[in-house]
């Protein structure tokens, strides 16, 4: 099975080459791969049909004890056959649909990648592998939906699908990991037998919610149903594949696969039945609102997905039988109908049913295939869809509770489905054409009518002779979901059962809706329904998405004001709150008991330093401020001198003098510092500044009570002469012990000097003062000022 999955990816990588070599025939050749895989999986049918399962492991991540394991039972076989069988038809169809496109190679890479991911998903046994394939389907479908990437709507739809299904996938990962914690295994096949353990576990509800989040987003259940109709922005072969056999069924597959583990509880039954049933009825009626063939079909897909979810929720043997039956029914007709819709679009240039009509003469083969699949969708006997509907009704009627409600919901939804099926299947081919077509319609090429024809024939064959699959494929799939074997027997005629009468009621409703469709579709009620439930959730999603980036933008703007003062204010306030708060919270703060010995001239110097700083703060004249600064600086130098640091004093004296000169030179060219800011702001800043200063003082005082570790100082002092031959210890430290530091210091000074030099020598561009202008217009004088020399320079050269 590993080879089967890998082969798809290998061929996907080779697809562009095949397209280049074979051109138009590429689709037929590439279609051989899924066809071959279909044959490969059919070979398993007899064995699996008898209840056998196949497990295959390959070493993958031994450190995590995670082998690449695959598991084939009835359920995965059913899906593998759908993926490969319908996949073969889609690959061939795409060759015709996109014939002549330059992008066919790229398309095949993505389509086959998608197929490989889907095949891996249904076959994977290891949950990590399962998750990787699950996300790979999200990723490849993102590429496929956004295939026409130069259209805004395609990109938006693709992004929507990726975010919805991708985030659901993340929830699923969490759920799966919890599940593996509870069961102690990474293998799905081993979990299947541990349902009782999981359902008793306190994590059960969390696991259930997370798994549901993954499945409902993937399967487009309300309120996540909006991404699926939007996903029709992709090329039609993608829609056909996505809707019939793959992507959206992945959610159903997930729930079906885990139903032996998680199913059977009240919360499972309640959630799946209600969400599925509501999605089913809602989207079935939404489908009647639209005139675009693909959009009608898209909404009926979500209707079916709702039905499948609901049946899994009911969970009886009959319901599961109905679920697997309807999975096949739907795959057959929906694949065919989407291909038909694509062919019509391809040949006429429109998908609007109101413009289409009377095409049966021009496109007889497409019409035949489309009609057969559409009638199956409408559940008209003797097609397979009729059987699907009957077993659904039987299952609903015999549900443990609420059977009549489920039946009523089923009739309501199926009635709308019949009408949609007839609209899609009849209107394009019969009646009069009302719109002027841009192209002269003629029959689609063989590659394009083949799909609907094959699928329509199968729908008819299975309907007339359900024994072809019911005992083998469907029964084993049912056994795979239930983990116990039941006899599954399908027949067209069940006798005059309640389900039969429900079918009659459905037909009455469906045909009534079909004949009323011309008036119903544009009605105000339907428009309202479409606006609230059709576009509403998607619009809410989009608004939320933009709201998120807008909020992020605003938050960033609120924090990053671009004002340095504000950043400092925030930092200082944080220091006060965090450091000061921590100091206050610390109960055992000890401050020095006395100020120690202090001589009067030392105290006088200290007071002078503080006063000069105060004067520099208060000064409204720049030169007064500089003077105050210098007094403070020289006082500090004197302090150094008093406390045994003559080197510091000398350096401080020289630097202070140099600074004074530099300041005076520069300040002559600058305006004054006159002008005051609002009093409230000054008080606020003064409070904050004083607070931080107090915090610093307190920290220093606390540090002073602690013993000082002098080992480094003593080492330096005692080795200064013996090791470095120097008498001045400070100098020895600078040039010897910490010589590299000093070199760094010199480098910094050099860089500063170079910076100063460059800044002074740069050619001076004078700009007018930048006004904060609200209109966002560039300041014209500035533009003129900058570009004028260029214009002069280039002007003469271009003149002759």
């Amino acid at each position: 099975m590993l080879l089967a999955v890998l082969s798809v990816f290998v061929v996907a990588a080779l697809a562009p080459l095949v397209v280049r070599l074979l051109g138009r025939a590429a689709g037929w050749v590439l279609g051989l791969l899924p066809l071959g895989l279909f044959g490969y999986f059919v070979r398993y049918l007899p064995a699996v049909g008898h209840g056998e399962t196949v497990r295959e492991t390959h070493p993958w991540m031994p450190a995590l004890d995670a082998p690449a394991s695959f598991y084939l039972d009835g359920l995965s076989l059913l899906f593998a056959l759908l993926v490969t069988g319908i996949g073969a038809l889609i690959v061939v169809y795409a060759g015709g649909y996109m014939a002549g496109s330059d992008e066919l190679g790229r398309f095949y890479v993505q389509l086959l990648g998608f197929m490989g991911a889907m095949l891996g998903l249904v076959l994977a046994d290891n949950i990590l592998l399962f998750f990787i394939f699950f996300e790979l389907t999200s990723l490849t479908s993102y590429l496929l939906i956004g295939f026409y990437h130069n259209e805004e709507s395609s990109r938006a739809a693709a992004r929507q699908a990726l975010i919805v299904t991708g985030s659901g996938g993340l929830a699923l990962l969490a759920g799966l990991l919890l599940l593996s914690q509870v069961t102690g295994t990474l293998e799905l096949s081993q979990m299947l037998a541990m349902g009782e353990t999981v359902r008793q576990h306190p994590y059960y509800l969390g696991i259930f919610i997370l798994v549901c989040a993954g499945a409902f987003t993937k399967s487009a259940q309300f309120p996540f149903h909006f991404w699926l109709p939007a996903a029709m922005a992709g090329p039609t072969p993608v829609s056909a594949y996505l809707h019939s056999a793959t992507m959206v069924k992945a959610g159903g597959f997930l729930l079906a696969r885990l139903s032996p583990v998680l199913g059977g509880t009240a919360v499972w039954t309640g959630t799946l039945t209600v969400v599925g049933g509501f999605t089913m009825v809602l989207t079935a009626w939404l489908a009647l609102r639209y005139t675009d063939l693909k959009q009608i079909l898209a909404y009926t897909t979500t209707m079916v997905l709702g039905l499948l979810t609901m049946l899994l929720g009911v969970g009886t043997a009959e319901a599961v039988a109905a679920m697997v039956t309807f999975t096949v029914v739907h795959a057959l007709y929906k694949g065919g109908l989407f291909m038909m819709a694509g062919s019509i679009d391809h040949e006429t240039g429109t998908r609007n049913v109101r413009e289409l009509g009377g095409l049966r003469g021009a496109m007889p083969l497409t019409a035949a295939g489309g009609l057969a699949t559409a009638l199956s969708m409408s559940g008209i006997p003797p097609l397979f869809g009729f059987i699907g509907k009957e077993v659904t009704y039987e299952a609903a009627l015999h549900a443990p509770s609420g059977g009549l409600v489920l039946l009523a919901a089923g009739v309501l939804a199926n009635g709308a489905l019949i009408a949609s099926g007839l609209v899609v299947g009849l209107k394009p081919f019969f009646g009069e054409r009302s719109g002027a077509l841009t192209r002269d319609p003629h029959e689609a090429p063989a590659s394009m009518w083949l799909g609907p024809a094959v699928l329509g024939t199968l729908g008819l064959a299975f309907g007339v002779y359900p024994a072809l699959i019911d005992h083998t494929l469907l029964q084993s799939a049912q056994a795979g979901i239930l983990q116990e074997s039941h006899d599954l027997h399908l027949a067209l005629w069940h006798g005059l059962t309640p389900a039969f009468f429900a079918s009659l009621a459905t037909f009455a409703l469906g045909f009534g809706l079909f004949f009323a469709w011309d008036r119903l579709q544009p009605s105000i009620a339907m428009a309202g329904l479409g606006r609230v439930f059709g576009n509403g959730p998607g619009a809410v999603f989009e608004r939320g998405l933009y709201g998120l980036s807008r909020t992020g933008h605003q938050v960033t703007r609120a924090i990053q004001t671009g004002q340095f003062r504000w950043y400092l204010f925030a930092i200082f306030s944080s220091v006060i709150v965090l450091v000061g708060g921590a100091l206050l919270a610390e109960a055992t703060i000890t401050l020095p008991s006395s100020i120690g010995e202090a001589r009067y001239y030392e105290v006088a110097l200290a007071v002078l330093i503080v006063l000069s700083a105060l004067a520099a703060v208060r000064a409204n004249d720049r030169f007064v401020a500089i003077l105050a600064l210098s007094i403070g600086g020289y006082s500090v130098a004197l302090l150094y001198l008093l406390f045994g640091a003559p080197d510091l004093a000398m350096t401080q004296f020289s630097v202070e003098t140099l600074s004074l000169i530099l300041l005076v030179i520069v300040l002559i060219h600058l305006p004054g510092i006159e002008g005051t800011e609002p009093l409230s702001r000054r008080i606020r800043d003064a409070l904050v500044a004083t607070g931080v200063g107090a915090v610093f003082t307190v920290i220093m005082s606390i540090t002073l009570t602690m013993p000082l570790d002098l080992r480094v100082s003593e080492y330096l002092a005692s080795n200064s002469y013996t090791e470095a031959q120097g008498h001045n210890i400070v100098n020895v430290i600078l040039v010897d012990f910490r010589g590299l530091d000093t070199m760094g210091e010199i480098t910094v000074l050099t860089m500063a000097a170079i910076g100063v030099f460059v800044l002074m020598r740069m050619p001076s561009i004078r700009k007018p003062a930048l006004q904060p202008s609200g209109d966002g217009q560039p300041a014209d004088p500035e533009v003129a000022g900058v570009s004028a020399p260029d214009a002069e320079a280039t002007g003469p050269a271009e003149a002759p």
Partner: protein
Amino acid sequence: MELILAVVSGCLFAASFYLLMRRNLLRFVIGIIILGNAVNLLIFTMGRLTRAQPPVIPYDAKIPPEPYANPLPQALILTAIVISFGLLAFTLVLIYRNYTVGRTMDADGLDQAEPNESLDVYEDEKRLPA
């Protein structure tokens, strides 16, 4: 005396931080200069004060006679003083340069280099088609 210098250092920090938060860029520069002194005093005080000998070894000795001033903070401060001067020179020229180009000494005018409303998040109309 250490406690007094701790208070002095705290006062210098407060004065410096107040000036750093002013709109006028020259006041900002004054704040930077005071900040340098505040930090140096902090380091100096934390190394403890002695009125005794500077850390110098007499010519006839191999180790300094006790007591002597702590040499390590002195070495650190010596570096710091010089670096502060480099910083002052560069800041001052930068502000001067900014003034010659923009004719402003307003700190709030410096955010002109940052685009304010450039993010294209208001594209409401680029929604999915109905």
